[in-house]
């Protein structure tokens, strides 16, 4: 169990005793604790229904938490300041169908507190950075799958969040785009952004994450670096670790 160190800077993310029971009675998370240090590249792995997306949704104010506390850089998630520090790219494409690429970015920046000039300038930077220049005035439904995925990531980074949450960002994308997204994400992390990544691709977690947490049925069952997990479970690969951890659980 994590013991907070009051002398250190607050972690990027801290979940304390988080419990979520949905209206239909499903218990998605039960007394769930998790700490993601500032500047970490942290992976969250688990099978479908393990509670990964529920945990992320709790952090991003997208579910009604049954019990527990969420702190972002020491601030409760109920504060506007904490929410302004988070950037979220969801698993499913959830872009505003009425807005162009440029508007999608600028309006997101506005929702997160940017003024008109700042949002416009930042949107141009992101359009350039994510190679969307030729599509800047195209509405989201008319973009290709890869362009939408890039726009989703650009939107999450638009307001310069300190903690970026990527919920299966490469699910269903081809190898080339996956590698491209990896480069974006690595670059982001190298500049000091804390990353929380969920993925089903174990090689992706191994390639990107400094630390990995395995969860199943709403509970944390292991947490370490990829090498540490392999050593702990006496496994050659992260895939073997995953299988063993899930069997034990």
């Amino acid at each position, binding site marked *: 169990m994590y013991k907070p160190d009051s002398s250190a800077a607050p972690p990027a993310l801290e979940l304390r005793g988080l419990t979520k029971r949905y209206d239909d009675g499903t218990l998605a998370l039960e007394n769930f604790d998790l700490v993601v240090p500032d500047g970490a590249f942290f992976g969250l792995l688990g099978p479908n229904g393990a509670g990964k997306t529920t945990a992320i*949704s709790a952090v991003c104010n997208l579910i009604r938490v049954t019990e527990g506390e969420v702190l972002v850089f020491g601030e409760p998630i109920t504060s*506007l300041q904490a929410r302004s520090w988070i950037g979220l790219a969801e698993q499913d494409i959830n872009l505003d169908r009425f807005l162009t690429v440029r508007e999608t970015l600028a309006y997101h920046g*506005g*929702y997160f*507190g940017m003024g008109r000039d700042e949002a416009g300038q930042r949107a141009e930077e992101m359009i350039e950075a994510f190679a969307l220049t030729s599509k800047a005035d195209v509405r989201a439904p008319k973009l290709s799958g890869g362009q939408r995925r890039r726009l989703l990531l650009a939107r999450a980074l638009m307001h*310069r969040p300190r903690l970026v949450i990527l919920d299966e960002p490469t699910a269903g994308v081809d190898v080339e785009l996956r590698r491209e997204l990896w480069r974006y994400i690595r*670059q982001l992390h190298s500049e000091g*952004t804390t990353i929380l990544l969920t993925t089903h691709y174990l090689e992706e977690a191994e390639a990107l994450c400094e630390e990995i947490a395995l969860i199943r049925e709403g509970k944390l069952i292991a947490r370490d670096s990829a090498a540490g997990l392999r050593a702990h479970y006496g496994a050659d690969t992260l895939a073997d670790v995953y299988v063993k951890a899930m069997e034990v659980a």
Partner: protein
Amino acid sequence: MTPTAREERIRGVGPASTAATTITGRQGMYWLARRETLRVSKLWTQTILAPVVSSLLFILVFGLSLSGRVRNVSGVPYDQFIVPGLIAMAMVQAAFTNNASTLFQARFDRYINDILSSPMHPWQMTIGFVIGGVYRGLLIGVGLLVLSVILTGISITHPAALIAVVALCLLLFASFGTVVGVYAQSWDSTSFIATIVIMPLAFVGGTFYSVSLLASPWEELTHVNPIFYMVQAMRFGLLGESDVSIWLSLGVTAALAIPAYLWAQWLFTTGRKLKA
């Protein structure tokens, strides 16, 4: 493009500063309201032109063609008599439909998550959405009023009363649309209320006739219809003529608008039906 060049291109997308800045949510509310009004403007043929043309046809068909046979109602030329009710009907339907559809669409496509996760207070989200419906209703109302002045020669008799009733009607129906958009399970749910509840109530709410001409119990029953009071207040504002007191009309409309707004506000505050 080589990876090196690509990495160079994306340099700087990370956080610029960790310094705490004061976030009030005001910018977010402004941008949300702007987004809602932009949506109305982008879809102007559906959101503005269609309801204006539809109401204009009522004025032309019922007002101008029947005014030869029905010259006056309560001392007012018939083509002018029906204008306040038709403007009220078009405005409240537009405000309702706008917010019911924008909220349902946002939930359906799940881009509402971008708003719910943003640093805005729930009341700021509510106001941001309500402004969209108010804006659409106002554009339609002003457009129809201008056309009515040209076609029928109608004028504004009590501007303060007109402003008050327009504000209350739009607040009521934009809020009610927000509530329905949050609860709706399908597109049918939103259109059902517009076509099966609001439109019939508007038609039997004294738009085309004076309630004093009705026999019992229809006259009494009409007083149970909330849209009747909105039509009467609009008629008072434009023509100075009403079947009931302007204060009663404004009171009834306010008594409905305030709870409707608070209901919409409660949904955003609690996250009910918006968050799992």
